[in-house]
């Protein structure tokens, strides 16, 4: 049936060479020139690899620029004459709106823009946000910088949603876990490069342009903003390649039929809500802890400040190389939920080590780093198997929205718990979150059931029939 439909589509496709070639599947477009080479053929691995690189670079700019304020905190506070509370507003303006905007962004990708246009629009928001930010610094208008961070936030988080959606479209059923792992490393790489490069850039700007104060800051931001332009370019190329692949592989077939409505959110399967909950409860047990961790290592384990910072950041550092490796393993083994369960369990173990023992915290934090990397690459792909493809953007957007909400709320309440009852109580709270996650996961198997998905994206030219396949995940 699907096969038939594809052939119909093929006939309607303008400019398609209908001559059969022995090497190419009968229903696919014949490719000539570069298109025939492995690098340009969307059915071949090398081409997917190219797309993967573009996909990872897509968010490099936004991750790079997200952390620019942190990298130049003292310079910003000096040149713009702001205190640390005012400074933190730059991050608040980014994150709070995204409690809702991510979801909206994902929905717009599904419903209005489509993935390609959506990506480009959000990339533009990122570029415009960064340019405004730089301009605000250049003309010494702090309020403009805050507005700019808001604009930047609209683009940045929704771009991450688009990136996830792209990943599923191209890699579902293949190297999806690896791809999510690589995207995480890319995010880490973006902030690491930024942290190390922006200081020297600021110095160099002072030397070469001979400017001081806020103008120097503005020019440095403009230079940092080049990464956003670069990512926008990647988005444009990716859009072109995706359109081309869609034409060649006739991917459109089902997606045009079904259109998501906002009310569809109510009919998201229970399993998806469980994935959301796991996401929120896990992340709130890791990031707010790291946010408050430095003093914990200094006080409980008598680490000097530099040492405490090092052990506190090991989770981020480890995730960059480990996430793709774990993603690769999960791709081979499958059983995502089992991996998620394993990560949550080991994270719980590391929190217990930190809470109840005086064991060197390097042990616990390295375990946490490994678990986090494993979770990041195995949890996010599950969404692709739980919702239909026309709802993907919305689902990912929703997931990021409630993750942002959870992180914002828990960061505040963690501070309150710490102030009133100390780190031990805080650790218990994190343990409770993780135990809750484990409880949800063990229930997961009971609620999961088979769904009919739309045609899985195939890049092999072999379009599968619409399959109802079970995504029951083996837990035990």
């Amino acid at each position, binding site marked *: 049936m699907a096969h038939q439909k594809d052939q119909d589509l093929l006939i309607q496709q303008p400019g398609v060479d209908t001559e059969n070639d022995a090497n190419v599947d009968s229903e696919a477009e014949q490719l000539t020139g570069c298109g025939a080479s492995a690098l340009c053929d969307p059915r071949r691995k090398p081409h997917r690899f190219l797309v993967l690189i573009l996909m990872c670079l897509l968010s490099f700019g936004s991750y790079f620029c997200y952390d620019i304020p942190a990298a130049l905190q003292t310079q910003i506070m000096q040149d713009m004459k702001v205190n640390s509370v005012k400074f933190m507003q730059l991050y608040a303006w980014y994150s709070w709106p995204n409690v809702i905007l991510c979801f909206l962004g994902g929905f717009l990708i599904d419903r209005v823009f489509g993935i390609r246009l959506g990506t480009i629009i959000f990339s533009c928001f990122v570029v415009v946000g960064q340019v405004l930010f730089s301009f605000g610094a250049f003309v010494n208008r702090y309020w403009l910088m805050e507005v700019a961070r808001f604009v930047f936030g609209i683009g940045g988080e929704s771009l991450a949603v688009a990136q996830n959606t792209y990943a599923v479209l191209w890699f*579902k*059923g293949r190297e*999806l*876990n690896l791809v999510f792992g690589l995207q995480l490393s890319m995010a880490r790489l973006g902030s690491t490069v930024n942290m190390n490069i922006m200081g020297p850039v600021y110095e160099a700007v002072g030397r070469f342009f001979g400017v001081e104060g806020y103008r120097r800051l503005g020019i440095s931001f403009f230079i940092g903003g080049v990464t956003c332009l670069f990512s926008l370019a990647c988005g444009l190329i990716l859009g072109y390649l995706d359109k081309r692949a869609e034409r060649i592989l006739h991917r459109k077939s089902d997606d045009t039929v079904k259109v998501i409505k906002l009310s569809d959110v109510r009919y998201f399967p229970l399993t998806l809500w469980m994935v959301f909950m796991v996401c929120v409860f896990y992340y709130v047990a890791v990031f707010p802890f790291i946010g408050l961790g430095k*003093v*914990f290592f200094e*006080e*409980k384990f008598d680490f000097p*400040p530099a040492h405490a910072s090092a052990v506190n950041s090991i989770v981020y550092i480890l995730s960059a190389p480990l996430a793709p490796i774990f993603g690769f393993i*999960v*791709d081979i*083994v*499958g*059983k*995502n*939920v089992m991996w998620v369960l394993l990560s949550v369990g080991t994270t719980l173990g590391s929190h*217990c080590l930190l*809470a*109840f*023992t*005086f064991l060197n915290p390097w042990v616990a934090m390295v375990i946490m780093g490994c678990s986090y990397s494993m979770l990041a690459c195995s949890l996010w*792909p*599950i969404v692709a*198997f739980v919702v239909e493809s026309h709802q993907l953007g919305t689902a990912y957007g929703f997931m990021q929205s409630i993750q942002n909400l959870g992180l914002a709320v828990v960061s505040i309440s963690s501070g309150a718990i*710490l*102030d*009133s*009852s*100390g*780190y*031990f*109580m805080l650790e*218990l*709270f994190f*343990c*409770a979150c993780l*135990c*809750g996650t*484990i*409880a949800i996961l*063990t*229930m997961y*198997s*009971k609620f999961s059931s088979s769904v009919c998905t739309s045609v*899985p994206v195939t890049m092999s030219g072999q379009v599968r029939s619409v*399959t109802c*396949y*079970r*995504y*029951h*995940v*083996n*837990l*035990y």
Partner: protein
Amino acid sequence: YQVSSENPLLLLVGLCVQQAVITLEVNPDCENLSGNANLVHLRAAGPHDTLHYVWSTYGVPTLLIIHSLSNESKLVVNWTSGCKFPSNQTSEAIKVHPQKDVDISMAFVLTKARNILLFEFDDAKTTGNLNNATTVFPPYLLEDFVWDDVSHTVNRSTHTATFHGHNKTDPGHLLQNASVTITVSLPYGRDPSLPHLLHNGNCSQFEVRISGFIPRGNYTRFALEFMLFSQGSNYSFEVKKSIDDEYTPTIFEVLSAILRNEDSQTYLQWKPVSYNKLSKNREASMPCKYYGGSSPGPKQEPNRTIAHFFYQGVPNGVQAFNISFGTGKEDFYNVTRFISWTALVGLGDPPLESISKLMFVLIFLCLGLPFLLVLLSIVLALKHRQQRHGYIPIGETH
């Protein structure tokens, strides 16, 4: 209570907590005050023994705790005319009657510093280590301070007294607002304010506040010097680490400086934290560093305190200490020009912190219940799985 001469300390534990009757008097037996006495006496009487707490700023601020095995013991202050202390330090101006009972118990004396020597030190390296200080400025000698009349600040229901002192040798009027405030109290259980120290009924708490001193450099810290007097001359320093920081968030240690001999033990106990704002909270907290006991040279020893009257000089065990406040870049004295530090002094064994019942309940709720839930789920899932055949794992969507 069984009085036992071999181990009189056993008796101390719980003395005040359970059935002590506490009476408070300011400048006892003093009819027309004209002097510098500023003395507060608390008498905690149990059925078989008594604890006397004597707090005074005569000379320098001093806290004296005396244990008597008689439940009718009495503090006697031999004032000269006008409620002044005699100039002769060896005169027995402060005694506890009957003296024979005092001798049996390990009468414990604590003076909080000879003078609490205050000195700032320039610490551009920001390590907060007193020994690395580039410049140690001349100290503020607390014996040069003038102390407000304590009778206005005594609280008879909470058993608290506050001594407020200003520097009187102030040529440049730089120290007009500079003050040292010492609040001494006799709380039960846990102190309601940070760092929420635990009390066991045979100790007294003090809080020292330093404020308003004009810093003498750009990056300065403050340090306090003080001494412990006791019959016990064996000094030891103990650090008790705990996994629980419920009562003092971010602080996992309790430190005790202990002086002991065969039949007595006295201590100073504190947590390594101080605060740089009047409203204490986590943000206002800063670490404090301790520089351990050394026997002070004769020149360093104070020449007049109420402890000298009691001991008729200086007892066997004298140890000098320093505490400095702040270690990081953000907690120099210059930032808020305020420091508050709290500690306990007492007899016998220092209070022992333990994990609270609330914590055990929470540990069960947070870890135990979910664990049971998971076990239940696994059992159910295993049962369920026996009835189920075949599945396609995720990622293998063929």
